[in-house]
């Protein structure tokens, strides 16, 4: 068994090979660094920052187009609950270095991408934060498989995807109590994503804010403490974990179906709501 840990996308990552095959660490680090340099909102030379600033990119890499198309697709699938243009709002609230912006409901008409050019009309500032980590985890999953690693665990800052032949027990971190867990979940394959506003929060002029912005209100939402979502891919789990925090209860079923996801939600009073299919075992 082999394991490695490194920092990427501003957080800590862990890789484990559960079988005899070694981890292709060099290939992994190259993939991660390239991804971060291309898509980080915090790097002024990244493709994303350049697009936000110049509003046009010629001969865009295929992966960039794919990510942009995913932005529009996720916005549509979640009926606007998920929106890549929250980047501007995060800048407004102090979490970012580029221009201010507002949430755009009409991103589909403002963002056009083709193999020869990407254009961003309007004033929206894009951010891949709501799904970029999940996308990268899935990318690394493919990379590990290509390099012959048959059983593995990828943990990107607490979002996990794994492939195993025996169930792997994962702890579900308590969103309200540091160093504590609310239960465990055992997976043989698939992804677990976790989202909580408390991990990245700050005060700006006496107002509390955190990094999960509701596109509907343009501000940090205030209700749930944390979400746990299982789905086949890390991309879907990552996106769904954010959406469940923002959604009304009436939308849970639709979100579950849309992302083939099961969920566990915890509110600020320590009350949980879980789908019947969520396979976690909670402490009692």
């Amino acid at each position, binding site marked *: 068994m082999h394991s490695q*840990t490194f920092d990427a996308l501003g*957080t800590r990552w862990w890789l484990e090979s559960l079988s005899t095959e070694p981890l292709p660490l060099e290939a992994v680090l190259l993939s991660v660094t390239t991804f971060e340099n291309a898509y980080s909102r915090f790097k002024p030379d990244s493709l994303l920052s350049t697009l936000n600033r110049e509003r046009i990119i010629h001969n865009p890499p295929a992966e960039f187009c794919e990510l942009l198309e995913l932005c529009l697709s996720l916005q549509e699938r979640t009926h606007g609950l998920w929106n890549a243009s929250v980047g501007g709002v995060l800048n407004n609230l*102090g979490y970012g270095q580029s221009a201010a912006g507002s949430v755009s409901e009409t991103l589909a008409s403002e963002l056009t991408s083709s193999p020869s050019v990407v254009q961003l009309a309007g004033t929206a500032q894009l951010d891949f934060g709501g799904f970029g980590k999940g996308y990268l985890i899935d990318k690394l999953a493919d990379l590990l498989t290509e390099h012959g690693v048959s059983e593995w665990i990828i943990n990107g800052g*607490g979002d996990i995807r794994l492939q195993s032949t025996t169930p792997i027990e994962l*702890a579900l971190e308590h969103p309200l109590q540091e160093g504590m*867990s609310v239960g465990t979940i055992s997976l043989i394959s698939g992804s677990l994503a976790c989202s909580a506003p408390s*991990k990245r929060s700050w005060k700006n*002029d006496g107002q509390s804010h955190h990094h999960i912005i509701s596109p509907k209100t343009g*501000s940090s939402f205030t209700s749930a403490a944390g979400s746990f979502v299982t789905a086949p891919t890390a991309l879907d789990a990552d996106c769904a974990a954010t959406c469940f925090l923002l959604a009304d*209860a009436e939308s849970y079923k639709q979100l579950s179906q849309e992302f083939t996801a099961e969920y566990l939600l915890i509110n600020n009073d320590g009350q949980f709501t879980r789908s019947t299919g969520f396979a976690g075992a909670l402490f009692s």
Partner: protein
Amino acid sequence: MNASTQRTSLIVGSISIPVLIAVGIFFFIAGNKPADSTIATEPTAVPTIRVAVTSTPVAVVTAVATATPATTAAPTATAAGVATATPTPTATAQSSTYTDGTYTANTSYSVPRETNTLAVTLTVKNDIITAASATHTGFGESQGYHSSFDSSLKGTVVGKSLASFTASRIGSASLTSAAFNKALTSIKTQAGA
């Protein structure tokens, strides 16, 4: 969701930034009352599955089976009903504690003026409940709680120490990042803190 907006001015350092702050109130409830619903078993000679459907009447199901599914959440108390369980394993027994398969427990219970029925189906694989569903018939007051039960289960979380888990096996929201801390420092500077 009720939302009201107000315009306020945000003074950051010497720069005045007009900010539109939307105040949204989310009602994060599935139904009017919490329907405490759990599916739990106890490893006794005659395993029981307690199924709570509404906040008052609870059906107690006696499972007549050679194996029962693993427990999930905390059980709730009270009441009694009439139930039979019909296990229909679809896989052969393995070395796991519980036999893989799909189990259905049927129960009916009385509430004032009517009788409700409930069928709970659980699929067990490798000692894990991989699927669960409930179908019911009922009328009137229970209906709202039924739909809550179908789509979600509720309860109170209990915390236990994470100490026994290695970091790579903990599902959590991302730890504060270097960039985030940098942004915090920048804001503090701007705000003259």
